[in-house]
């Protein structure tokens, strides 16, 4: 064993292991571990890699359906989309690194998630991202927005993968802990999916891609601890991205995957060479022996500890068929990437690492994975919030000026400033650009398309985690439906505070319950995901944010619906029931100045009924203008449709609406606004009623203003308010 360093309790604590966990390490090893071994235990048992606090709850999520090819547990989820094709997707967080170093943190988040997808044999065809920042006027916010957006663009644009959608929110709870959740959707042949389980004793273990440096050491451990004042000092744990190398790695891997050379493949993400080698060998039930002197390094005198814990980007580990080595090497040479045989599979069941002729680590793989601590952490339910009656919320002087204020507010303002920095058109298949309900990307040589979206309403989850969890799932389902796609499956990115606090664990446990209910009711399983805990700074947690990424499929992209009004004199209809729910609404926060109340209830049966109806009409070719109603309520939805189409509308408050402001700004769920040619409205209404879907006439399209009950506001004025927020915030440097 190399240079023996005494493992003191301080060293154990620095590695984020508790005294009990270290006791377990000693038990497994039967001796004191070497520093390298301790480092490996530390990252493998970190919250980030082991899911030790979340595992017992995640099990409750439904993960299967006839179209699920691969559920959670691999690099990404895989679903069958027909015609022998599969969609491969996942969302992952890069929160702490992005706060410390926004450009590189966000960039490598994007790089990491794309690698997860192409490791499975899929070509990435779209990226999305869900971003949550602190208050707009917080001194760090502009710097973070600017860096994160540039970083996402810098990486994705260079890779030539369009960034087609996502979401951006602002809230004080993220002031010291922003969220950067990146999602990639890839396309593969359903019978050519690549997995990570190693097989074949004696088979060579190959390292490809970028060289290993000292960056990102202990990134996974950092992601598993709270932030404090000195988090700036953790900058060296942030990785540095090189999208060009990743582009080469992508092309080289896909070229190799087209041959029959690969036994197993795993990207080096969090915990780098450690987690990739451990996962491959544990899934295959084999041992693995690595000669660390053969690992391509970009710095001299790197220790075994550093090599194993480095999180340098753009690297892959593969097990190849021995006879395919020459062919594989030639491909990587063509792409000018390192290709190094660094070890082989063994039948010992041990991970053995050699460095400078000595054994730096020799540890059993199975217990390292299987005996990883699992905690059933104590949790308390979130206290229920009182319902807020519409009559207890003051009405505005003028509905339209309230609308203008809301459309220009941080959470509802146009995100154009953000997505114009992302190449959302490269590849030439973007059918629906950012700004709609869901992005739509056509599949090559096909009329078929994938729709994708990411959603979460953290203020709902905070007020009632179960309802909020269900709502996040339902909103993605609704957004996919609104463009005409059949929702198939989701990826979840669970961003929460410190799991050791029972109230945070309660948020986690209950939102999972809500998500599970929604997934079941909507036949909409979870196929991949990521958990990010300890999103706290100085003991203050973020709003609980279970970001959901949804993917759906449509048979004919030509029938896709968009939110934009298409023509004047069309009838504007509301589908779904409106009670005027103002609790936790944007209206309540932006106009009445309160963040309070219970969030709108989620009726999953109504969600399903209304959505299935809308999708049916779109699929039949009878509807091309549709928008789901979410943040801000009905009037915001109609205004967005008018602004997108550059056509106004003349609206009338229905007589049976109790309070006009609650009717127009309430955030009741399971609703859609549609517009159909005047002559077709009656037929659509009859069909809706027959399907049991509540339907009401809101008005008619036309003109260059939004008119409501006789008052009116020019679209140009609304547009000014809607479009100016982000440029003004970001331009005032």
């Amino acid at each position, binding site marked *: 064993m190399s240079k023996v360093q005494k493992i003191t309790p301080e060293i154990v604590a620095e590695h984020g292991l508790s005294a009990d966990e270290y006791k377990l390490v000693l038990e497994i090893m039967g001796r004191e571990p070497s520093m390298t071994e301790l480092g490996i235990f530390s990252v493998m048992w970190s919250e980030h890699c082991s899911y030790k606090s979340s595992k017992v709850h995640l099990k409750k999520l439904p993960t299967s359906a006839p179209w699920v090819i691969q559920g959670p547990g691999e690099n990404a989820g895989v679903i069958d989309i027909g015609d022998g094709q599969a969609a491969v997707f996942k969302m992952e967080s890069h929160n702490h690194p992005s706060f410390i170093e926004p450009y590189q943190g966000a960039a490598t988040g994007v790089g990491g998630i794309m690698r997860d997808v192409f490791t499975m044999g899929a070509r990435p065809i779209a990226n999305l991202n869900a971003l949550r920042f602190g208050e707009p006027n917080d001194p760090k916010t502009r710097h973070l927005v600017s860096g994160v957006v540039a970083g996402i663009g810098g990486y994705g*644009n*260079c890779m*030539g993968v369009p960034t087609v959608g996502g979401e951006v929110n602002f809230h004080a709870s993220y002031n010291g802990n922003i969220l950067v959740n990146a999602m990639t959707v890839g396309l593969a042949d359903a019978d050519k999916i690549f997995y990570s389980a190693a097989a074949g004793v004696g088979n060579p273990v190959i390292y490809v891609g970028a060289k290993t440096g000292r960056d990102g050491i202990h990134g996974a451990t950092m992601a598993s601890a709270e932030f404090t004042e000195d988090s700036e000092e953790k900058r060296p744990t942030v990785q540095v991205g090189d999208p060009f190398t990743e582009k080469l790695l992508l092309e080289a891997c896909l070229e190799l995957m087209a041959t029959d050379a690969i036994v197993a493949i795993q990207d080096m993400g969090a915990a780098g060479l450690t987690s990739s080698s451990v996962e491959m060998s544990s899934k295959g039930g084999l041992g693995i022996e690595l000669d660390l002197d053969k690992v391509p390094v970009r710095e001299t005198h790197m220790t075994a500890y550093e090599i194993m814990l480095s999180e340098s980007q753009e690297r892959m580990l593969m097990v190849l068929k021995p006879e395919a080595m020459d062919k594989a090497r030639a491909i990587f040479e063509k792409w*000018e990437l390192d290709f190094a045989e660094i070890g082989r599979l063994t039948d010992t069941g041990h991970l053995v690492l050699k460095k400078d002729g000595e054994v730096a680590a020799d540890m059993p793989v199975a217990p390292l994975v299987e005996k990883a601590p699992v905690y059933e952490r104590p949790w308390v339910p979130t206290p229920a919030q009182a319902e807020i009656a519409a009559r207890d919320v003051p009405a505005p002087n003028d509905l339209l000026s309230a609308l203008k204020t809301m459309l220009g507010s941080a959470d509802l303002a146009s995100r154009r400033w953000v*997505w114009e920095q*992302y*190449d959302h*058109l490269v590849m*030439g*298949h973007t059918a629906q650009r950012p700004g709609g309900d869901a992005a739509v990307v056509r599949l090559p040589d096909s009329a078929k398309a994938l729709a994708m979206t990411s959603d979460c309403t953290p203020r709902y989850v905070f007020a009632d985690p179960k309802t909020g969890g269900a709502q996040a799932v339902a909103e993605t389902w609704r957004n996919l439906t609104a463009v005409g796609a059949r929702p198939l499956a989701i990826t979840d990115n669970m961003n929460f505070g410190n799991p050791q606090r029972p109230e945070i664990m309660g948020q986690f446990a209950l939102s999972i319950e809500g998500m599970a209910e929604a997934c079941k009711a909507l036949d909409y399983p979870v196929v991949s995901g990521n958990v990010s805990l300890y999103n706290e700074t100085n003991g203050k947690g973020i709003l609980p944010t279970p970001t959901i990424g949804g993917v759906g499929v449509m048979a004919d992209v030509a029938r896709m619906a968009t939110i934009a009004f298409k023509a004047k004199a069309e009838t504007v209809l509301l589908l779904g029931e409106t009670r005027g729910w103002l609790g936790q609404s944007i209206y309540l926060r932006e106009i009445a100045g309160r963040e309070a109340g219970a969030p709108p209830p989620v009726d999953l049966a109504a969600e399903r009924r209304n959505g299935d109806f809308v999708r049916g009409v779109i699929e039949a070719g009878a509807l091309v203008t549709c928008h789901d109603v979410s943040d801000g309520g009905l009037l915001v939805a109609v205004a967005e449709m008018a602004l997108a189409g550059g056509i106004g509308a003349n609206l009338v408050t229905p007589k049976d609406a109790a309070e006009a402001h609650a009717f127009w700004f309430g955030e009741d769920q399971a609703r859609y606004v549609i517009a159909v040619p005047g002559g077709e409205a009656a037929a659509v209404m009859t069909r809706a009623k027959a399907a049991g879907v509540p339907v009401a006439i809101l008005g008619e399209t036309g003109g260059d203003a939004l008119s409501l009950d006789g008052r009116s506001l020019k679209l140009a004025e609304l547009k000014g308010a809607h479009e100016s927020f982000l440029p003004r915030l970001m331009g005032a440097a």
Partner: protein
Amino acid sequence: MKSAIVVFPGSNREGDAKAALKQATGKDPIMVWHRDTALPKVDLVLVPGGFSYGDYLRCGAIAANSPVLREVKARAEGGMAVIGICNGFQIITEAGLLPGVLLRNANLKFVCRNVGLRVETSGSRFTAGYKKGQVLSIPVAHHDGNYFADPRTLDELEAEDRIAFRYCGPEGRLDSVYNPNGSIRHIAGILNKKRNVLGLMPHPENAIEPLHGSTDGKALFTSMVEAVS
């Protein structure tokens, strides 16, 4: 018409360009890898968008010195048609096929959106399918599209009718609000002296079918085909 697309490590719109050329010519263009020194016999070479060699140095600077570009340059001098789009424009400009330089966008940000593009001349094989003054809607997607040249070069370009496209408003009006990158005199694309080389920042290959929301880029590819046949 036979066409080829030069592919560098880091190119990323070669597939989009291939689709456009295939649509216009009915056949797949030949994809030429950057290490190839022999260029097949073709009528047109397209240098596509992307981040050649990562573009960590000045955009296009390394690609401009690649073996295949020397060959492209020699053929262009012999009269073969060359079109450089986005990174391709940067590359052929760095290689000296066109005058001037592409600087970082004036607001220092990457920009992806549809822009108005005014056709400044129909007197070339690339723009013969358009009318002078016609306004097109074509997307841009770049970080370094801010065209710059000294006043004498610019005057010469104008005098010789070598400005192919300018950024403009929906009615063809020139104004800085319509210019996505701050390029001098709102220049979006230029021709060489012999008018067989075009470089432009916007992506006509991303405006060739209804799915793209505009088909205004199509005529650029079809007119190149017609010029040859």
